[in-house]
């Protein structure tokens, strides 16, 4: 009986999700949820708006990135209805996709907004009753890797995700050469001498 119920539930969810899909020559909004309460939420406790701008313009503050969002971290309380306004400022496709959300509300756990070019679209999701950090990104693979990546902290979140521009470091780190400019070398020598003399001083003083 239980699997049957689950299957029924799935059908209901999926049909709901399809109903929640909007698509056109401008782009699409998929798996939107403005009404269904996440498990453990008594009611919608807050209403918030979120403005996400996407484009290469926002990569400027972070060396080594090409694409970015105007903000790379968003924090919300639990059981909050968030109205996202997504703006694409480039002449190419960009997305704002949140992963890992409850799959009974969002098929594949995904809330997805996509613009095929310059433009603006609105979409709504409700934060679950958890303390979790969710990945939000543009799933054009090289856009994610080159900076279009953010985190959504619900109820304070559960730590940082890796390689969020301006927030956390890479796990698979890039390596850079040592800068051999005058200032850097001078600083290097001064610090080395400082360390060397302090250890000499320590041992001589210790002996006395």
């Amino acid at each position, binding site marked *: 009986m239980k699997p049957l119920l689950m299957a029924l539930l799935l059908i209901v969810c999926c049909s709901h999700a399809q109903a929640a899909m909007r698509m*056109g020559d401008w782009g699409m909004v998929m798996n939107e949820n403005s009404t269904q309460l996440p498990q453990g939420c008594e009611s919608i406790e807050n209403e918030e708006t979120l403005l996400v701008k996407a484009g290469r313009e926002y990569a400027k503050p972070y060396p080594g990135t*090409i694409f970015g969002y105007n903000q790379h971290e968003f924090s919300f309380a639990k059981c909050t209805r968030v109205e996202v306004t997504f703006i694409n400022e480039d002449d*190419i*496709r960009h997305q704002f996709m949140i992963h890992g959300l409850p799959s009974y509300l969002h098929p594949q756990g995904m809330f997805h907004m996509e613009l*095929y070019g310059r433009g603006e679209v609105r979409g709504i999701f409700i934060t679950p009753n958890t303390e979790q950090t969710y990945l939000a990104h543009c799933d054009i693979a090289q856009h994610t*890797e080159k900076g279009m990546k953010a985190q959504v902290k619900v109820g304070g979140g559960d730590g940082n995700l*890796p390689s969020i521009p301006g927030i956390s470091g890479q796990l698979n780190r*890039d390596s850079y050469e040592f800068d051999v400019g005058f200032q850097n070398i001078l600083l290097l020598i001064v610090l080395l001498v400082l360390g060397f003399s302090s250890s000499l001083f320590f041992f001589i003083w210790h002996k006395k």
Partner: protein
Amino acid sequence: MKKYSVFSLSLSAIILSVIALILYDPFLLYPRFFDYIGMPGYQAPPQSKPKPEVAEVTVCDEQYPEWRKAYNIGGVNIQPSDACNPDNPYEVAAFVLGTNNVIMPVLMRTQLADDAVIKTNDIDGDGDPDDIVIRVEVAELNGRSPDDEGFIPSFDIAPGVQPGAWVFAPKSRGMSTINREEMKANHLLRLPSAPIRVEAGDNVTLILENTHYFPHTIHLHGVDHSYSNNDGVPQTSEKMTMPGEQHVYKIKPRHAGTMMYHCHVQVQVHFMMGLQGLFIVEENKPNNWVQTFNVGAGKVRQPSVAVQESFEQEYDMHYQAIDTALNNLIQTSNDPRQLAKKMNRLYDITDGTDDYFLLNGRSFPYTLRESLVSVEANQHIKMRVLNGTAEVLALHSHGHKATITANDGVDVNPVAQVTRDVYSVSPAQRIDLDLYTKDDGLHSYGEGIWLLHDHAERAITNNGIAPGGNVSQIIYRKYLNKHALPSGEGVDIRPYFSPEYYKGELPTWAASDAFGFFDDAGGKTIKSFSDVLLIIVLGMLMGVLFLLFSALYSLLHDIAVKLKDRQSL
């Protein structure tokens, strides 16, 4: 006393060395030693290593076998396809009709953006649209991730082989990967860059949407186009299209033929990274709805009117080569500044050597999954061949002699057409071939599974291990099994589908070698009396050498002490 012991130690070392040499192989001392001691006794060479365990392999990872049959979607007649993973017929319909002219359920069965191919206005009233807008994006394959050791989105050209690449792809929507758990690229993102088809006389608007992190352009190689802002050459006709920008190319090609498109920025890098594709201008005919993209090249499931008049089937054959020293650079850093330096300034193509050879984006054995030329007797098959490598392609067909009908998109005078079984195709050249499967001892020698490959022998290997490279087959349909794969009379092909084979870990003939004649030989073991003695003698030699060194040390020490004493006096 000390001198005596050093002398005796040295003498022992020499004697022990000679004994060790005699025990190991007296013929090292004197090659004609057997004149004195007679022939050496029989020493059995080591046993073979056990045959390595090979994990169960997937020969055909079929996902939608039902797509192989003929379809009619929205009035588009889609030919059957014998590939293990055939082209998505709904996608073919969307390419033929335009993404603006198909109903939503068809578009939903593809991953195309709504504005990928827009077809409108039958200007000349001949029953097909003449205003065509085509949008292409630039995708990275097997790139580096800042968070994970694996490559994203991953694309295997052969078992376990994932070289970095860039491609032009039809504008898509949604995720790059097939799902969140797997890093595999969705099927629109693949090598080669998708062949593009238009009709002569169409008003074609080709929009490059640069979704990549480097600047790019499109050069319409051989296609009739005006120069200004349209030739794709950054040094002459236009500025580069930077990341996040788009560029509109407007053409109205007057001449039909097999042409090409490629990026003209840092060509020695971008062309070899994969930003090159077939661009085919079809003859202008009534009711000629052409299949705008042929994702993955290979069989064209809806050939143009003119092609269908003379041929039963049409195949796009795009040959490419990969130098991993270039392509895998994108896997060494995630910082575009470092990549630009490594690729444009540190990589030197004049020192480059190709490692992998692709037909339609894959190397053997994966060519068997999707690039078989599957035929029946007495068919005319049109093959459009593009050589996208930096070397001459020597395209050889077993059992058949094909006839050349066009060079670089220009028809060969029928009287001058030649028929041969090795065609040399220069870099960037295109040839159109008519493969005629009539069993007349010239065009075909009869039914069978006949190889089709570049006869420059390095090109039939995957990084030196054969069979690999751009090897494919002309296969008569009765030799296909139910997974649309060849069932031949030769060796078991399954070992070729395991990554270990191309890492060189499997003996080449392991599967057909019941006697184990060619298994890997094992190593030497200590098994005879003289082996034991040899090791003991070597141990003694080590001891003697140790004593010699300690004698040397005490000598030096004594000298140092004497010097010190002299100073203190």
